[in-house]
């Protein structure tokens, strides 16, 4: 019983004790009392007598005595026991969650939860596989396209620095063509994922020129770093990779793979010409040194001359203008070396992020190992055409026989 109920109970009890006995005019007769006590009255008559009993203390006491004597308590308890208990929907629902049922339901729920979690976990694990399985035919192409773009970006980087055409050659028409090619390549590449530098060709020629200047500055900075007494200069590929890393791995791609291929062809020709000129210069210089100066001084003079006149001569040479600044960086420290070193300078080169060394008439990727199986492919063949664009790009940059290590496999391109 709550405190409020206790308070009211006490007050009513007190009121009952103070209240005077109600004496009504008419009382119930014995027949009515016994009928009420036995619960045998019709509803209307019973209601009337209840009203009287609530007021008449005398009748009420007699009726209550009669009721108790007539076994009203036992009768009501039997009636309650015999009466069907009305079961509401809420009771039915609550019975479902009673403890006896819950012991089974809880176990079943636990099994369901475990099964569900397992199913979801397995599904999540198998989802990528399914994706790979469904995209198996398409994924390599996309991957190749992206790869080629990324790798050709490196090539283009190389083009812009090493085999960079003169500023005058970058005409609006060329830029427009590059834009078109970029658009074409953009069809296979999402707009959002396209590298920021891929839009570079769309910029006006003045911006292109500014970029060239910036690249030259960078190369000059790298030159100062390289001018430190380092007798084992870093291979050009690493510098290139550094440059690529600076551009976030996705260096500028002025156009799609097709344009890159064209540019790579041009740059390859330019490199070959430049190297031929350099070899000639070296031979002439060696002859001059041998004839005019002592070896040490001659070497120093040559180096001085190289430092002074070399670049200017190279500037005159269109092919030399296409040289990568990395190439310059790589080759400049080697100038003080002997004629053998000069020969050695021509024995290495880089293309598409790969370093190559000359072995006889062929160029061999420095990543190449003798344990690798070599796949021989002729240029211009269908098999060559089916190669990755990046691999083809490298092959086209390096003329002659070249062994390229591409994705862990060695290709001999003839």
């Amino acid at each position, binding site marked *: 019983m709550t405190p409020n109920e206790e308070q009211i109970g006490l007050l009513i009890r*007190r009121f009952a*004790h103070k209240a005077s006995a109600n004496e009504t005019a008419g009382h119930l007769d*014995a*027949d009515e009392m016994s009928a009420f006590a036995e619960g045998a009255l019709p509803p209307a008559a019973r209601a009337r007598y209840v*009203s009287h009993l609530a007021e008449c203390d005398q009748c009420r006491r007699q009726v209550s*005595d009669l009721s108790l004597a007539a076994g009203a*308590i036992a009768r009501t308890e039997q009636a309650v026991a015999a009466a069907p208990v009305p079961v509401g929907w809420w009771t039915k629902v609550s019975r479902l969650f009673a403890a006896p049922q819950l012991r089974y339901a809880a176990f079943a729920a636990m099994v369901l939860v475990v099964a569900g979690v397992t199913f979801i976990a397995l599904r999540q694990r198998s989802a990528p596989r399914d994706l790979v399985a469904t995209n198996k035919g398409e994924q390599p192409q996309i991957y190749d396209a992206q790869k080629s773009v990324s790798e050709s970006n490196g090539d283009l980087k190389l083009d812009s620095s090493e085999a960079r055409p003169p500023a005058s050659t970058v005409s609006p028409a060329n830029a427009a063509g590059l834009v078109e090619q970029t658009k074409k390549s953009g069809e296979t590449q999402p707009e959002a994922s396209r590298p920021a530098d891929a839009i570079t060709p769309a910029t006006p020629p003045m911006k292109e020129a500014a970029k060239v200047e910036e690249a030259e500055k960078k190369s000059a900075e790298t030159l100062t770093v390289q001018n430190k007494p380092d007798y084992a200069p870093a291979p050009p590929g690493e510098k290139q990779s550094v440059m690529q890393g600076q551009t976030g791995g996705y260096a500028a791609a002025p156009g799609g793979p097709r344009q890159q291929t064209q540019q790579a062809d041009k740059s390859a020709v330019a490199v070959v010409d430049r190297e031929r000129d350099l070899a000639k210069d070296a031979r002439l210089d060696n002859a001059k040194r041998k004839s005019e100066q002592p070896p040490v001084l001659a070497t120093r003079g040559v180096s001085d001359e190289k430092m002074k006149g070399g670049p200017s001569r190279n500037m005159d040479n269109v092919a030399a203008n296409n040289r990568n600044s990395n190439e310059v960086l790589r080759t400049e420290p080697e100038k003080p070396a002997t004629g053998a070193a000069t020969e050695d300078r021509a024995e290495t080169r880089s293309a598409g992020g790969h370093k190559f060394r000359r072995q006889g008439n062929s160029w061999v990727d420095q990543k190449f190992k003798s344990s690798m199986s070599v796949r021989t492919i002729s240029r211009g063949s269908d098999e060559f055409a089916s190669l990755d664009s990046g691999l083809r790009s490298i092959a086209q940059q390096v003329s002659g026989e070249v062994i390229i290590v591409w994705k862990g496999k060695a290709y001999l391109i003839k």
Partner: protein
Amino acid sequence: MAGARRALARAANQRSLAAECLTPRLRASADKYVFKHDPAADAAAVESFLDGLHADDLCLVIACERGDEHAWNDLFQGYGATVRSAARSASSNEAMADDVAQSIWAELHGLKSRADGSPGGKLAYYSGVGSLGGWLRAVVGQLAVDQHRRQTKLVQADEDADLDRMALDETDGGDGAFHSASTPEDLLTTNLASADVEKALGRALEEMADEDRLLMKLYYFDGLRLREAGAVLGVHEATASRRLTRIHGEVREKVESILMKEHGWTKAEAARSLAEVAANLQTDVEPMLVTSSDSGLQSSVT
């Protein structure tokens, strides 16, 4: 009416009573318990009522009224023990119980005849709605109460004379103990925080439904236990408990409402006053109330 036909058939078979003897009693019973309270009662209600009659008991009583010796023997043998038991329960002592038990048969038979020649005994008031045994207990109880009243009046007259004498001594300047000794009711009155609460409580009880008010009076006024109060109303103890809980809430709301509307109290003031009054009652008067209610119950039985 199937119930009436069945009663008539029993009367003919067991007591050799004609339909004319029984029909007026059946009609009188229906008038008293059906049509008096529901004049528009339909045939189904009347048939249900007649079906519930104790036809055998009614035939026995009618046969007794008509002077059937076999019927009287049956009545005496069948209900003699019930009468004695009822007399003992209703009487305060064995002598009074024997007196009541002896006089009941004379009351039933009737020493005088009515104007129409029929015996003027109490058997004429049996309607057959309740059982004959229950009716006999009720008659015995009323008889015992009447005898108790007669004896109490004699005693009370002596007590009143004593009280008057004591009051007279008081007015004469004597140091009587009448005013110095406070009764429990006086203590209760003086301890009551506010008469407004009492008035509001009385009104709240008056405005309750009859069924609820009867339960309240059986429980609080007559001192019955909840089980007994529920049995009088024909409901189980659990039902009575639920009703009582609901009644508590309704009475409290009603009292607070009256105090707020008619006396301008705030709800907090009303609640605080109720709590204070109840606390005073609980600490000071409750033990006294318990003994008082017990004595009240005993007096009601006697």
